[in-house]
C-alpha cells in the first residue's frame, strides 16, 4: 500500500497538472508586488557599472544617442532603465538625442521626457540639450542614414528644423563621430547598433536590454558594448546607483520569488522522474 501511494506521489510530481504550475507562478509574482518584502537588490553587476562609469567619465556636454526600441511588452523591463539613465545623463550635463526605431516607441520617449524633465518639446532646453527625432523607419537602414548624417530626418519629431537648433551647431562632423555613446533600449537585438554606429564611427554602444536578450549582447561586451542593463535587475541596479529607486527596484521581490519557485518545481519534477524510474511496476 505504502509503495503504491509513494509511486503515485512521484508520478504526480513528475506530471503535475500545468495549471498548478501557473497558479504557483501567479501567486509568487503577484503577492510580492502587492505586499513588498523589501529584499535587497544585491551587488551591482559589472555590466551595469560599466555603463554607469562610462557615462560618469564622459566630458561635459557629450552627445548621447538614446535608441528607443521597446515595445509595450519590453517596456516593463527597459523603460525604468531608460529613465534612470536619463536622470544620470542629465545630472552630468550631457546632451541627449532621442530616436525611436519602432512605431511603438515614441510614446515611451515622450513619457520618459515628461517624467524626468517635466516637459518634452516645450522644455526650455529642448533644442539645446535635448532633441527628439521621433520614429525613423527601417531599423538598421534608418540608423545607418542617421549615423552618416545627423540631419537625415531634416526635422525633429515635432516638425522643427534641425539645422536651426543650437544642439547641432558646435558638432564638427554632423555624424556619429560626434556621439560619445549610443544606448539601445529594447528586446530585439543590439547587433545592428554595433554594426552601424560602433564599427564604422567608433562610437561605443550601451544597452538597457530585456533579460532574454542579454546572452546575445555578451559577445560584444566589453569591447563594442561598454556596459548594459540586464532586464529588470539591471534597471533596478541603475536606479540604486542614481539613488532613485522606482518600478524596477519594486519588481525585484517578485523576480526573486519567481525564480525560486521555478527552480523548486524543476527540482521536484526531477525527483519525481528519478524516483518513478527506479520503481518496479505492479508492486514488489
Amino acid at each position, binding site marked *: 500500500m505504502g509503495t503504491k501511494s509513494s509511486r503515485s506521489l512521484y508520478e504526480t510530481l513528475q506530471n503535475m497538472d500545468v495549471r498548478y504550475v501557473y497558479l504557483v507562478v501567479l501567486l509568487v509574482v503577484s503577492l510580492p508586488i502587492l505586499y513588498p518584502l523589501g529584499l535587497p537588490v544585491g551587488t551591482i553587476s559589472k555590466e551595469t557599472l560599466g555603463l554607469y562609469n562610462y557615462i560618469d567619465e564622459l566630458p561635459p556636454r557629450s552627445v548621447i544617442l538614446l535608441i528607443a526600441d521597446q*515595445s509595450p*511588452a*519590453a517596456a516593463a523591463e527597459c523603460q525604468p532603465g531608460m529613465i534612470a539613465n536619463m536622470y544620470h545623463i542629465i545630472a552630468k550635463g550631457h546632451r541627449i538625442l532621442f530616436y525611436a526605431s519602432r512605431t511603438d516607441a515614441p510614446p515611451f520617449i515622450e513619457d520618459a521626457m515628461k517624467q524626468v524633465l517635466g516637459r518634452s518639446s516645450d522644455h526650455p532646453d529642448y533644442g539645446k540639450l535635448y532633441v527628439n527625432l521621433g520614429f525613423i523607419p527601417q531599423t538598421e537602414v534608418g540608423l545607418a542614414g542617421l549615423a552618416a548624417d545627423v540631419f537625415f530626418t531634416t526635422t525633429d519629431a515635432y516638425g522643427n528644423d534641425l539645422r536651426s537648433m543650437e544642439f547641432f551647431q558646435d558638432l564638427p562632423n554632423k555624424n556619429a563621430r560626434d556621439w560619445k555613446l549610443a544606448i539601445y533600449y529594447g*528586446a*530585439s*537585438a543590439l547587433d545592428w547598433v554595433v554594426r552601424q554606429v560602433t564599427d*564604422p564611427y567608433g562610437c561605443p554602444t550601451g544597452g538597457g536590454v*530585456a533579460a*532574454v*536578450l*542579454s*546572452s*546575445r549582447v555578451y559577445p560584444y561586451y566589453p569591447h563594442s558594448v561598454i556596459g548594459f542593463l540586464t532586464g529588470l535587475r539591471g534597471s533596478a541596479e541603475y536606479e540604486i546607483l542614481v539613488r532613485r529607486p522606482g518600478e524596477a527596484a519594486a519588481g525585484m521581490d517578485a523576480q526573486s520569488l519567481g525564480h525560486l519557485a521555478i527552480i523548486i518545481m524543476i527540482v521536484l519534477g526531477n525527483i519525481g522522474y528519478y524516483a518513478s524510474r527506479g520503481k518496479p511496476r505492479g508492486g514488489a
Partner: protein
Amino acid sequence: MLVDVALSVRTGYSGALLMFILALIIVGIGIYLTINGVIKPRIRRLPGIDALDECIGRATELGRPVHFTVGIGGISNVQVIAGLSIAGYVARKCAELGVRFLFTFSQPTVQPAAMDLIKEAYVAAGKPEDFVQENVMWLSGRQFSFATGVMGLVVRERVAANLILGYFAAESLIFAEAGFRAGAVQIAGTTNSYQIPFFVATCDYTLISEELITAGAYISQEPGQVGSVLGQDYIRVIGLVLMAIGSILYAVGFKTLTTWLGL
C-alpha cells in the same frame, strides 16, 4: 570617378574590403568546384529537415493540417528567406498528399512572395485547384497580436505538425507551447541565439542558426547551392586558422596581422 572610388577605401576598412572580396572568391570557388563535379560535397544530416517528411506523413494519417510560420520578419530578413525555401518544399509535399497547408506571416512584404511560392508548389504537384488563398494568412503586423493569432489558429485547427522556421523574438515560446497543447510534432529554427533555448526545450527538432539557412541547399541538393555551403565551410576554416594564429601572435606582442586586416 571609378578610379577615385577605387582609391578611396574608408579608413580602417581595408581589412573589411579584403575579407569581402575573399568571401566572394571563396564561395565562388566552392560553387565552381561543385558545379563542375570536381568535388562532390555532402551536407551532414539535419534531423530537423529529415523529419519534415515524417511530419507531413503524420498529418496525412491524422487528417489534420500542417502549419508553417516564418515569424515576424519581413522579406528582407535572411531567416524569412530561408524559411520560404523550406516552405516551398513543404507546400509541395502537402499538395501531393492532400494535406491542408496553413501558412502564416506577420509582415505584409512577405505576402506576394509567399502567395506565389505556395501557389506554384500546388501547380508543380499537379493540384492547382487545391490551392486555397485563405490558407496563406497574414494575421497581424504586431508581434504579440501575431503570436495570439497563431496560438488560436494552431489550437483551433489542431494541427498535426507545427513548423516554426524563420525570424522569431520573444513570442517564440508562445508558438511552441500552443503547438504542444495541440499535440503537434514541432520543428523550429531561427538564427536568434537567445530564442534557440526555448525551441530546444519545447520542440521535437530544432535547427540551430546556420542549419536553418543551409536547409534550402540540403533539401534541393542543387550543385550551386551545395557549392555555396562548401564555400561557407572554407571561409569558416580560414577564419579559425586566422583566429588561432592571430591570437597567438597578439599574445606574444606581434600585432601585424591585426593591423594588416584593419580590425
